[in-house]
């Protein structure tokens, strides 16, 4: 089943240009920094719910089928604590396939979530979680259990936001800022790019 893009989001992005730089559907009340540093999987639309903040200044990598609730913060760059206008360099924020990030969560910089993780509402994820299928909860988030939900099916025609899956490699090679994507950049900086 492919979700249809809400007409409000579509009009805000492509008519008015609110969050218009994003290559995936975003709610006009969400906030986005540096859309070309986000590597998005199929069928995941961070910020389609209102009041999200996708701050990709140090890169965000999101897997397939990730569901992101409202007022979720995906923060990829820490402020320098003694000079607050500067940001500290760091590895990108990585969210695995089929993760569920519930309402009001904040994912802090440098965190890597394994596949099928569930972050319960209002948690603040400060540490990486490399065990698939775990449930994270609390502030700071701890692993409170595991789940064995069936693997959700992603439709065969699911897109990377607005970009069709067959075009995405080309799209990512041309447009994304590969230096912010860590180890995930290798797939898009292969010799096939032939310097164009």
């Amino acid at each position, binding site marked *: 089943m492919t979700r249809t893009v809400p007409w409000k989001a579509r009009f805000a992005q492509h008519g008015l240009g609110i969050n218009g730089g994003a290559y995936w559907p975003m709610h*006009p009340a969400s906030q986005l920094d540096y859309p070309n540093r986000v590597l998005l999987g199929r069928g995941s639309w961070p910020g389609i719910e209102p009041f999200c903040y996708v701050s990709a200044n140090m890169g965000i990598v999101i897997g397939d089928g990730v569901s992101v609730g409202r007022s979720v913060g995906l923060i990829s760059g820490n402020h320098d604590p*003694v000079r607050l206008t500067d940001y500290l360099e760091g590895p990108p924020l990585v969210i695995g396939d089929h993760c569920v990030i519930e309402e009001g969560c904040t994912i802090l910089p440098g965190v890597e979530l394994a596949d099928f993780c569930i972050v319960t509402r209002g948690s603040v994820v400060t540490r990486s979680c490399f065990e698939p299928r775990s449930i994270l909860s609390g502030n700071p988030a701890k692993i409170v259990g595991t789940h064995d939900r069936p693997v959700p099916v992603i439709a065969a025609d699911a897109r990377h936001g607005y970009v069709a899956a067959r075009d995405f490699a080309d799209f990512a090679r041309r447009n994304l800022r590969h230096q912010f994507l860590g180890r995930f950049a290798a797939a898009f900086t292969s010799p096939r790019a032939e310097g164009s």
Partner: protein
Amino acid sequence: MGRLLNMQLSWPATILDRLRRLFEAHWHRVGGGRYFVDTAGTQVEVHFRMWFAQKILRRNADAYWPVHPATRVRGARFTVIGVETSPGWSTGCEIDGRGGLYIGDYTQIAPNVRLLSLPDGAEAPAAPIDFATKIGRHCLIAMNATVGAGVRLGDFTIVGAGAVVADSFPEGYCVVAGNPARIVKRLDPAACEHWQRPNAYVGYTPLARIGVLRDRKIDPALFDRIWGAA
């Protein structure tokens, strides 16, 4: 498909973007302030979308600083802000200044932050005598944090994401996080940079003309507590 492969704005959005830039560059000639030009590149630049929502659609119109259309500001008359800080510049914030709220210079406020100055369910006073909540200079309030009523935060207090600040940290130079907020790290005051901006703005108003806000936008008693010497 070509547009998507090149990651550009759509053509209607491109036209609107050009018009917006033209408007922002020349608005001060028509009679408004120079805030579009002067705050460009600062940490709370005035965006056309915020200006339109506040000055034309009159949403959060009593706030004298740029506010995101998706945030809510209450009691702007009893909120005093320092230079180059704008509570509610980000999305989803809830700024309640009805009990008296002060936010120091250069403080950054992330999305979905709640700054409260009244306890839950309390009746708002007609005119607060003093600030219920005071936040110092060069602070950072991270995403989804709540600063409760009656809290004093010193300079360089960094409130972590998702924190609920119920106690005061008046000495500053620390990182507080958690619910309830606790000090997780102290900063070296000598290393912290108290930078200043020449030609600084207080919201839409240049610092040199701060006096026009007194009694027009801000309660005079609270205004004099902060800007009395100026």
